[in-house]
């Protein structure tokens, strides 16, 4: 088992662990942000370059530092490797540069974007972005496309993380959308408008780190921070049936898969990601369709987690419920 040190924290990890996975095991500030890597999707990662880290010592065997920052999501830990993330100012500067690149053509239309509040790019730009854009040219624009009646593709917001393409390949059985064109006019598209007609296509919404793929059944219904996320399940013949309901009163505004602290779909069973089917996601919008388990503990540092529930009274109940759940989990 190789040992790796990241920002001074040493951890022993299984063979084949990437730097990013090791950093997630350590947790906290040590973990680099990731916009395209998704542990549940094979061959994901490496594109966005936000998770770059500095390897100051390659390994015990070959202690030379790596000449360039490496994508931590795609670099395997070697025994004795030493890595800097938050502790290297030049690396932070490089990451800020990557974030600026991701933002120059992004419309920054958060006020009208359904993803706002749970958008990874929003978090990233808060932590690594400049307060003002230095890009003065016209931003790239694309037409909005409906991919069937349930999913909206707002390509202008896309950062080309390829996650949705990998969902189509690995979770749905066929892929009808992909990346067209190249360079800075590359776009996610079906080329000729085609509905993505697959029971699991809705998972593309869950993996999208920005507001490029959103749920049309939730479109403009509510800001996400005004909703109450509740864990719920149902017997489903197609999927695990474990979901999160985003509720307002007794109304189910949106259904998504359950996501962990990294924004990824939780495992439903050991090693089996809890992708949910389109029926659970789009059709089951009544409380009676579901067995409510209780309020969802939102671990990420998103707006929903930052005490912005609709009213304080409910929040208190939620907090005590969450505490109980957590205590149970610990015991």
């Amino acid at each position, binding site marked *: 088992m190789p040992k790796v040190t990241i920002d001074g924290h040493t951890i022993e990890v299984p063979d084949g662990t990437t730097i990013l996975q090791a950093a997630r095991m350590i947790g906290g500030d040590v973990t680099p942000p990731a916009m395209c890597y998704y542990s549940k999707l094979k061959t994901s*990662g*490496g*594109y*966005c*370059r*936000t998770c*770059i880290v500095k390897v100051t010592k390659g390994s015990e065997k070959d202690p030379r530092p790596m*000449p*360039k*920052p490496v*994508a931590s999501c*795609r670099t*395997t830990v070697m025994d004795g490797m030493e890595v800097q993330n938050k502790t290297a100012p030049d690396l932070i500067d*490089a990451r800020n*540069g*990557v974030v*600026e*690149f*991701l933002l*120059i*053509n992004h419309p920054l239309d958060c006020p009208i974007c359904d993803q706002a509040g749970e958008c990874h790019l929003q978090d990233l730009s808060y932590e690594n972005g400049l307060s003002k854009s*230095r*890009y003065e*040219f016209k931003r790239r624009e694309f037409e909005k496309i409906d991919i069937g009646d349930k999913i909206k593709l707002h390509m202008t917001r896309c*950062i*080309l993380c390829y996650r949705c393409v990998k969902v189509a390949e690995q979770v749905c059985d066929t892929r009808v959308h992909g*990346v067209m*064109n*190249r*360079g*800075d*006019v*590359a776009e996610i598209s079906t080329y000729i408008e085609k509905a993505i007609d697959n029971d699991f296509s809705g998972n593309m919404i869950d993996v999208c780190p920005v507001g490029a793929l959103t749920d049309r059944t939730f479109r403009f219904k509510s800001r996400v921070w005004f909703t109450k996320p509740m864990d719920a399940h149902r017997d489903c013949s197609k999927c695990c049936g474990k979901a999160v309901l985003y509720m307002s009163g007794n109304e189910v505004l949106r259904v998504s898969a359950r996501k962990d602290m990294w924004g990824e779909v939780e495992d439903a069973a050991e090693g089996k990601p809890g992708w949910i089917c389109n029926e659970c996601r789009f059709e089951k919008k009544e409380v009676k369709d579901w067995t409510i388990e209780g309020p969802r503990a939102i671990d990420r540092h998103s707006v929903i987690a930052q005490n912005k529930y609709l009213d304080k009274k409910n929040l208190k109940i939620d907090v005590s419920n969450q505490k109980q759940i957590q205590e149970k989990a610990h015991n």
Partner: protein
Amino acid sequence: MGRKLLTQHINVPGIRNLETYRQHGGYDTLRKAFGMKQEDIVEEVKKSGLRGRGGAGFPTGLKWSFLAKPEGVARYLVCNADESEPGTFKDRYMMEHLPHLLIEGMAIGSFALGCRTSYIYIRGELMYVYHILQKAIDEAYAAGFLGKNVMGTGWDFDLFLQCGGGAYICGEETALIESLEGKRGNPRIKPPFPAIKGVWDCPTVVNNVESIMAVVPIVRDGGDAYAQIGIGKSTGTKLISACGHLKKPGVYEIELGVPVEEFIYSDEYCGGIRNDKKLKAVVAGGSSVPVLPAELILKTANGEPRLMSYESLADGGFATGTMLGSGGFIVMDEDTSIVKNLWTFTRFYHHESCGQCSPCREGTGWMEKLLHKILDGHGTLADVDLLWEIQSKIEGKTICPLGDAAAWPVASAIRHFRSEFEEYVRNPSAIRKDHHYYRVNNLNPELV
């Protein structure tokens, strides 16, 4: 006259045809190779010190020795004939005139590496060269140099051509592999390296046309003989594609170590600057490498003569040096606008970025727009600083070297010709009149 190892017969009429090629010793080296142990051929290539001629300069023999050889798994030698680096046209020239030299090199290399099938990936625009190569391959099959039981040795070997579709990025070896698999030319994230997992996940070696061709004289004369040519770690001969404002542009085979000054000015090579103008700047190894002003390309910062070799051109690092790269030698005379030339390069990288990773996808376009703004006379001094910062944020942050290739020309142009950028900012009306003709040496002090 320097020794010629690749081009000595290039002017022989009919050398493109098998018969004439045979009369000049063609395929004798392949026969010799079959009499050698495979690992000994690799050893000779290692001894020769041959460095990858596509631009990166990685030792070819070492690359060959990395090839994984798992039992029962096919492995492939792929020739990178996707020559697209601005300023470089040697491979096209060689394939057009000496197709059999490439085929013989591919056969020897494939035998040495144990590859039963190999491919030449040629850029799609070079259709007419594709036909020339295909005709030569057909000849070689008919004569028993390719196919079943090559030259009666019992060795079966197939060589196929594959065409590209128009994408500079496919010159990057993993993008080339993706393209060969019928996909978009998106570079792969490494590791795994092609030597372990290449075409169809099989171990693969990708070599440039010139590298493959150089294997023929190496095996013919021995690695030691090859290593004696050249200077230091820059062994053998190199094809230089000389272009721009020269009296005699063209492809020259030089012994590595020729002084740059001799290469530019002597009649044996480029014959000096067109119209007897003054030399302003040179991009020595294809558009990706740093541009150097005349004084630094002719002499190093220490005042020593600069030589056409990997080490000498790199002397001084990026502060005062450059790289041999692919040998695309672009010469600019005193009337050239460095900023405008840079803009065409940056437009090129913007156009050719595959779009996979964010710094290159977004940064190349941003740089192009800023340069256009400056050329248009709307730039500010802050734009020049921003340009510098953008290139520094791209360099070293991308999946493949295209990011670096886009950053280095910008960095070097600002490093060595900052005053010219500032002139564009300060004196836009004079600049707007004519982009093409711009005398940096005749700055009008009244306008500054």
